[in-house]
């Protein structure tokens, strides 16, 4: 069977559309939840640093250790190790719900570091000016740090989303669906390399779309280079 025939056949069956949808949906939900946890965590890591606006050394060290700990575990191991946690949170250790829990656990510490490094780029002089004008720390975070770091934060979000998309392909291991599952079950386990490559191709297209959209949004949000 030709490669293109295979593509059409899978498309007619609706298998690929479903796979794309599931992959995109899992990636987006996981990225969103990862930011709900990772953004405040990144802010806390930044402000409690010795050079931050609210230095708390012990808290910074403890959070830093936890973040590093989770980032050291390979995703495939983390997924298996966190099965009980998933059961606790969403009541199951199988399927897409469990996958989202795993993706969030893996991505949130990564997001926290991305956020922290974006906030570090904000000019210290601007923060000093905000302090001199009588801003409290909450105002500095919400009105100075985050808005000034916005383009960099969005660049980070694009990177995070692509990384999470890559992780989601491993989800088939615990019964997750999406393009990863199609590639592994229909392609790899049933020895059909064409299906495997169709899935890879679609992943490439999705990554490109995310990256191009991300770059456009960043460009539009950055007021520094506009002439």
């Amino acid at each position, binding site marked *: 069977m030709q490669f293109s025939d295979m593509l059409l056949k899978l498309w007619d069956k609706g298998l690929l559309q479903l796979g794309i949808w599931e992959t995109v949906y899992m990636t987006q939900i996981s990225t969103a939840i990862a930011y709900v946890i990772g953004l405040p965590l990144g802010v806390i890591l930044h402000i409690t640093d010795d050079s931050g606006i609210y230095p708390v050394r012990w808290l910074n060290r403890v959070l830093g250790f936890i973040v590093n700990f989770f980032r050291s575990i390979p995703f495939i191991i983390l997924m298996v190790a966190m099965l009980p946690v998933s059961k606790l949170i969403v009541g199951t250790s199988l399927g897409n719900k469990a996958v989202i829990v795993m993706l969030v656990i893996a991505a949130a510490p990564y997001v926290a570091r991305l956020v922290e490094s974006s906030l570090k780029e904000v000019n210290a002089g601007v923060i000093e000016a905000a*302090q*001199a004008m009588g801003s409290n720390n909450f*105002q500095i975070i919400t009105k100075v740090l985050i*808005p000034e770091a916005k383009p960099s934060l969005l660049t980070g979000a694009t990177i995070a989303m692509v990384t999470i998309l890559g992780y989601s392909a491993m989800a088939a291991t615990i019964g997750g669906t999406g393009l990863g599952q199609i590639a592994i079950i229909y392609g790899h386990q049933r020895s059909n390399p064409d299906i495997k490559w169709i899935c890879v191709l679609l992943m490439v297209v999705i990554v490109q779309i995310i990256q191009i959209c991300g770059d456009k949004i960043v460009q539009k949000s950055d007021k520094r280079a506009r002439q």
Partner: protein
Amino acid sequence: MIEIRHLGKTYHTRERDIVALEDINLTINDGEIFGIIGLSGAGKSTLVRCINFLEVPTSGDVVIDGKVLGQLSRKELLKLRQSIGMIFQNFNLLEQRTVLRNVCYPMEIAGEKRDKAVARARELLKLVGLEDRERSYPSQLSGGQKQRVAIARALATNPRTILCDEATSALDPNTTRSILDLLRRINAELGVTIIVITHEMKVIDQICDRVAVIDQSHIAEEGRVSEVFTNPQSQIAKDLIIPKDLTVLETTGGRRLRLTFDGTKTDAPIISQMVLSCQAPVNILFANTRELDGVMHGHMIIELPSDPQQADKILVWLKNSEIKWREER
């Protein structure tokens, strides 16, 4: 009135303690333009940050209108800072906000209503001459324009005092002059007290009423600008007024005299008269004079001719004149 009492600041590092300021005593009156001059590393930036407690002094206190800053709660301190504007060498504008929203920022912090804040911001942009740039972003402005926005922002909450930390050091001479003129106008029209930190004598000379010279963590000298300028007492003040690289100038090795003009002689062409009546040439090595209220202030260093007879003629002429002078080595 701002009083700085026995203020000291020591930074503790693992290796050693670094004394940035020691026993600083200054009183800055309402409505004056007060200059603090010193070389880099003298402690002047630390001092200005102690005035609004961006840096907390390790000893002594700052008293602003009767409020002892060290005794204020965090909340009270933030409130007090809203009444002290500050402008910086690098402008420190919010890059992702328009000019208008930059000027609105301090009013947002103070809880001002949005439409009121916008109206006031427009008023201030007009005052600094940037009413047509309110939609621009800082990256689209020149250095001088950015500093004007920063000044408008500093004025937004009707402060009684503005602190200027090397506010013109990143600007070219023409822009520097226009920014200094703007500061002087704000001082005259709004009665805002202005504290200027700089390493440039010309900034002090152009706008300040009084000056403190800071050197190696201490105040070396303090007084009215005209006094310090015409009769510097400390070595550091002399160095700042008369550049050290003077000796690099090629000279014939003759004796040098420093002439001081402190208002005694006005419009008479003194040097010409001296040269003509003595029939002896002099070499002008350095001159820094200016007119203050119609009279001449400043210094001039001249080199006497190597011929001792001609040199004596000039010395005699000078002794009979009203000019103050002394021999330089």
